[in-house]
Structures are given as C-alpha cells and as structure tokens.
C-alpha cells in the first residue's frame, strides 16, 4: 500500500518536474524550483534520463558547428569586409548624385539631354570657327582696274600670303542708237 502510494507520488512529482525540467536544464529556474527538481532527480531514473537526453542533444547540435569554427580561417574575411565597405561608399557617392538629379524637376523631365548636346556642339565648334576666321583674315582689295572689255580686281592677304587676281568681263555697253 505504502509502496503504491510512493510510486504514485513519484509519478505526480514526475509530471510536475517534467514541466520544469527544460527550464532547469537551461538554468532558468528559481532557487525553490531548483531544490524541488534536484531532490526529485536523486530518486527518479526517468527524469535523469530526460536530462541526459537533452545534454546529448546539445552536444550533437553544438559539435559540428564548433568543428566548423575551428577549421575556418578568418584572416581574409576582414579584408573582404573592408573592400565591401569602400565599394559601397563609392556607390553611395554615385547614388547621392543620381538622387540629386532625380530631385531636380528640370532633370527629372530630361530637359537636360538636348541642352547638354547643344552645349557639347558649341564647345567643339566655336574654337574651330574661331580658328578658321583668325587663320584666314579678311583679304583687302589692293587694286581695281577697269577697262572697256574687262575689269581686274586684285585681293591680297598678308598673313596667308595669298594673292587673288579676279578678271571678269566689264558691263556691256548699251548699243548706241
């Protein structure tokens, strides 16, 4: 009778302990709960087994990860992180320029494309035109000779040392009636 009562008492205790056993294993119980569990564990093989099972599981989960950490070389990882930060800083600068362009309503409307093209054309063409004009200064008429049949005009440019002699027919005289 007493034995039965003891067995049933242990079972009751087991069900109360099993609720706390995980917390006990994780060291999250109060002092009162700890002493209750520990006094139960001294006599209960089932609960001791449960606890051992949790310990074995912990070892199984932990071992391959710890092994992976031991095997790994980390010295080059920092170099990659450093490079990653620098790359992102560069792209951040570009992104901020782009975002500034997006903010401006003029740029958002893409008005700047024809404006930019015109500016480029002007920048390229103006010096060329200017060069042409300066390299060939306007010629001056040196002499102009008229005759009855032909006219002669002589142009001369000092810098280019070019002389143009222009010979053309004179105006026909109106027949004398």
């Amino acid at each position, binding site marked *: 009778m007493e034995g039965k009562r003891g067995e049933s008492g242990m079972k009751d205790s087991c069900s109360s302990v099993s609720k706390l056993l*995980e*917390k006990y294993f*994780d*060291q*999250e119980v109060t002092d009162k709960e700890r002493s209750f569990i520990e006094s139960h564990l001294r006599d209960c093989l089932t609960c*001791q*087994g449960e606890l*051992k*099972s*949790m310990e*074995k*599981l*912990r070892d*199984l*989960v*932990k*071992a*391959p*990860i*710890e*092994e*992976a*950490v*031991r*095997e*790994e070389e*980390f010295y080059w*990882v*920092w170099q*990659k*992180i*450093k490079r*990653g*930060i620098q790359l*992102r800083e560069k792209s951040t600068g570009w992104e901020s320029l782009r975002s500034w362009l997006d903010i401006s309503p003029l740029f958002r409307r893409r008005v700047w494309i024809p404006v930019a093209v015109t500016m480029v054309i002007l920048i390229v063409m103006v010096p060329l035109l200017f060069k042409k004009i300066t390299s060939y200064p306007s010629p001056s008429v040196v002499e102009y000779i008229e005759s009855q049949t032909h006219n002669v005009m002589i142009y001369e440019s000092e810098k280019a040392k070019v002389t143009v002699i222009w010979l053309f027919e004179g105006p026909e005289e109106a027949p004398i009636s």
Partner: protein
Amino acid sequence: MNQEEAELISRCQQGDQDALKEIFDQYHKKVYRIAYGVVRQREDSLDIVQEVFIKLFRSIQNFKGKSKFYTYLYRLALNTAIDHVRKTGKYAVSSLDQEGIPQPAEESEKRPDQILLHKELEGKVNLAMERLPIDQRTALLLREVEGLSYQEMAEAMGCSIGTVMSRLHYGRKKMQELLKDYVKPHG
C-alpha cells in the same frame, strides 16, 4: 554595456573602420556560428559574416543602446542568414556531400571507420536540423550553441519569452524524435 564597449560603438557610429575591426575581432566567430547553424554551408556562412559586418557598419546608427549590443548583432546575423536561406533556397547539404573541407587534426588520427561514423552522424544532425522550422532551429542555436538566456533570445529573435520557450521545447522534441537512436539514454 560597459564603458569600453560603449566607446567602441560610438567610434563605429562615427564611421571609424578601426572600431569596426575591433568589433569584428570580438564577434566574428559568434556570427559565423549563427550563420553556419542556419545555412550549414561553409562558403555561404562566410558570405553571411561579411554581409553582417558591412550591414552593421551602415546601420549601427540605429543602435541606441536600449538592448545589449550582442543581441542586436545576433538579430542582424539571424535575419541575414534567414534571408539568405529564403533567397537561395539552399540549406543543409549533408557534410558527406561536401568536398574540399579539410579534416581537423584529431580526425586524421582516427580510424577510417570512426571518421565515417562521425561524418554519418554529422550528416544526420544536419538533416534533422533541416527539418525543423527556421524559428525552432534558431532558438536551438541561440540556446545550445551560444548559451543565451531566454531574455536575450527574446531580444535577438524579436519575440516574447513565452514564444522562445515554446520554440525551444518543440525544436528539442522534434530533434529528439529524429535522432532518437543517438540521444535516448541506454539502459
């Protein structure tokens, strides 16, 4: 958070890369454990470590010191690892299938049959972890590998202590069931 750590974080918030290096030296193994625990692949785990510290450098301004710094970092690591799994759809190839991983020193002294048994068991643990929902898997990692308290786990996982306990309980039950030949006490 002690004063030394507070100063380190403050320097990092001002863009000091040397401060980030100090944080890296202190925490890179912890971040790797989380990454490897979630994705179970060496190369991917290293990529995650890099990503976590780059993200940390960019987002450390958001750390106001209300929680512990390492729980903030764990949260960043967990989210990055979980995002990686979701993006790539990759997880937990058994180590038996992996090539090019060097044997640790003590392993080379073991007999070939022992190494095979060890690798087989590791493969089974990986497969069992793979079958766990990601929340239960991360709860197990934070508790069993990192040894975080329920409160710290709740901060890192962004949930209540009750949820932490529930995830941990169901995770353990499922793992015990899947690995019953290895975890049940004999006799």
